[in-house]
């Protein structure tokens, strides 16, 4: 029994306190002020909005754990979406077959991986600051995308890909299932593989990790490549959901993904943090915006409240460490 408790605790981790508390507070608050809050409609809107932001947050998570940042995630997703769209368009547009879509997805993932690979190589071999490298990659990809699309939309895709954005299996939206699947993959990757282990170690001290015989450059390159792959998955989901690709779509998510990571207890300097608390933090963010929506507010107010929530959680964490400090002093 104790062992089970320990396992559960290990699964949740100490980072769970902040998002867990916030989740409870949000559910209690909104169910008190709005009777429609605890309903299928709320669940539906959260379930459909969660995946895009969620997948991009997963893409942001790995670089932050190594002590870096990937500011190119949204435009990597756009470019991947464009790649898939291009394959579909050149194979008949709305009449393209499943094979074309499959090839499109593979090429999209390849494009995402390539963006991550280049950043990873530059960061690993030149030790340039990840913020800078990913920022310039972001500008490059944005420019590339706008250049290719001339700032317009690309739309007109086959009907059979729509379920990927709108369909449900057993009452659960397909994008949500894909997202949960990716969350689990990331969880296993970080807690059960050597790559994950090394990601944490690099985040705490890259030189000591190298001295311990870890190929730190390889890990950095893989981390950014995987981040790019996750962006590509997000890009394909966006393509299916909107039935169009526009460069700049999802741009406003960029800093929200960082916010979600910090809210989920990821250490801003790297080395510590888990996937599940970030997942919970993402649910909190979506519940907040759905709840505010019910009360008649718009997404912009929700954005402000997200920011306030992050400040509140950081202040509570600060207060908690203060409190512990005083307790230790007395004892």
């Amino acid at each position, binding site marked *: 029994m104790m062992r089970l408790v320990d396992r559960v605790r290990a699964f949740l981790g100490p980072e769970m306190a902040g998002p867990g508390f916030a989740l409870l507070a949000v559910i209690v608050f909104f169910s008190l002020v709005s009777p429609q809050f605890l309903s299928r409609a709320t669940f539906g809107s959260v379930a459909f909005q969660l995946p895009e932001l969620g997948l991009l947050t997963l893409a942001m998570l790995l670089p932050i754990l190594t002590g870096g940042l990937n*500011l190119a995630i949204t435009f990597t997703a756009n470019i991947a979406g464009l790649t898939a769209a291009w394959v579909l368009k050149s194979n008949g547009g709305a009449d393209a077959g499943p094979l074309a879509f499959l090839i499109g997805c593979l090429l999209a993932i390849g494009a995402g991986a390539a963006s991550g690979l280049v950043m990873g190589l*530059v960061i690993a*071999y*030149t*030790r*340039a*600051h990840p*913020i*800078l*490298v990913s*920022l*310039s*990659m*972001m*500008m*490059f*990809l*944005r*420019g*590339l995308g*706008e*250049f290719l699309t*001339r*700032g317009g939309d690309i739309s007109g895709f086959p009907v059979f890909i729509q379920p990927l954005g709108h369909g449900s299996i057993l009452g659960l939206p397909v994008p949500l299932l894909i997202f949960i699947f990716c969350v689990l993959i990331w969880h296993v990757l970080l807690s059960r593989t050597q790559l994950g282990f090394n990601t944490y170690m690099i985040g705490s001290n890259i030189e000591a990790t190298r001295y311990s015989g870890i190929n730190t450059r390889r890990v950095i390159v893989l981390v950014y490549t995987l981040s790019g792959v996750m962006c590509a998955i997000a890009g394909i989901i966006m393509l299916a959901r909107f039935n169009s690709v526009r460069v700049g779509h999802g*741009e406003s998510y960029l*800093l*929200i993904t*960082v*916010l979600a990571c*910090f809210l989920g207890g990821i250490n*801003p*300097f790297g080395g510590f943090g888990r996937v599940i608390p970030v997942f919970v933090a993402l649910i909190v963010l979506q519940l907040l915006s759905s709840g505010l929506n019910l009360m008649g*507010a*718009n997404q*912009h*107010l*929700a*954005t*402000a*409240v*997200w*920011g*306030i929530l*992050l*400040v509140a959680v*950081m*202040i509570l964490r*600060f207060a908690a460490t203060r409190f512990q400090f005083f307790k230790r002093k007395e004892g």
Partner: protein
Amino acid sequence: MRRIIQSHATEFALLAVIAVISFVLSVATNTFFTVGNAFDLLNSSAVNIIFAVGLLVVLIAGGIDISFAVAASVVQYVTAILLGWMGGGGWLSGLLIAGGAGVLLGAFNAFLIHKFRIISIVATIATFNIYFGLLMFFTRGVSIYNLPDWLTDRVILYEREMADGSWIEITLPVLVMVICVIATWIFITRTTTGRQLYAFGDNPEGARRFGINIGAMQFIAFGWLGLMAGIGGLIQAHYAQEVVPNALYGRELDVLAAVVLGGARLGGGRGSVLGCVLGVLLISITQNGLNLAGVSPFAFKMIIGAIILVAITLSNTRLERLLPFMRQQGSRG
């Protein structure tokens, strides 16, 4: 001379790159290398340079700020509304209100960072969302076009027609920009407080042992950026002749890239006003040149992104080649 080049390597590298690009562009187009175009460039870069020197101060003190561009938008609205209440106002009252509001928004960041020990990137990403979300919520995304006349009228301080038919114009934004640049330069290189900021960014623990007031450093650095953001916001409203709530959204990352390209270090202690100005100019010269050369405007950002990526890669590779050598010397044991 050699020492000056060594100690200002980034600035000279930027100057060299600017010279090369200018040369190529002046060969490729016949409109680039004109005095008139140079002044156009200054006019259009003024707001970004004002933002950049403000951000430089925060970077030197070891922080980072994501929120300043949306803070500038908030300042534009606050100033426009207050001026409306006051029944017009003028440049002096406008600058005072904008600067004051900017300082307050910057000080709020410093408050979170200092009082609750939230690291600056977390705190300013939070305030970025708060400022922008509230701004869009309260304005409902509506722009303001009926600004006071004094704010929208172009103020030309000096103009002259050149022999080649182009016009030289020095406008108010350029004057304000020059004042901000000089003020920042004096502040960070010629005053004790400025040197304390460098020391704090370079070695916070060492600065603490000297009794430097850490809280004051945060408030001064973020307050200075807030001041520049406020002034920059007002000037941008003047330049654009309207106030649009999301006009400056995303500008923070462009300015950050330019400042770091100019030699400021994320992490503190290093950076110069000259490098910072050159960093902004390099980007706008490239953009301007590509424009004149008839390159599609959609390709600008791609080319600029690629240039920065290559610049970072090259400058760090050079350091990396030197570093192992230096490290062995430093840790001979």
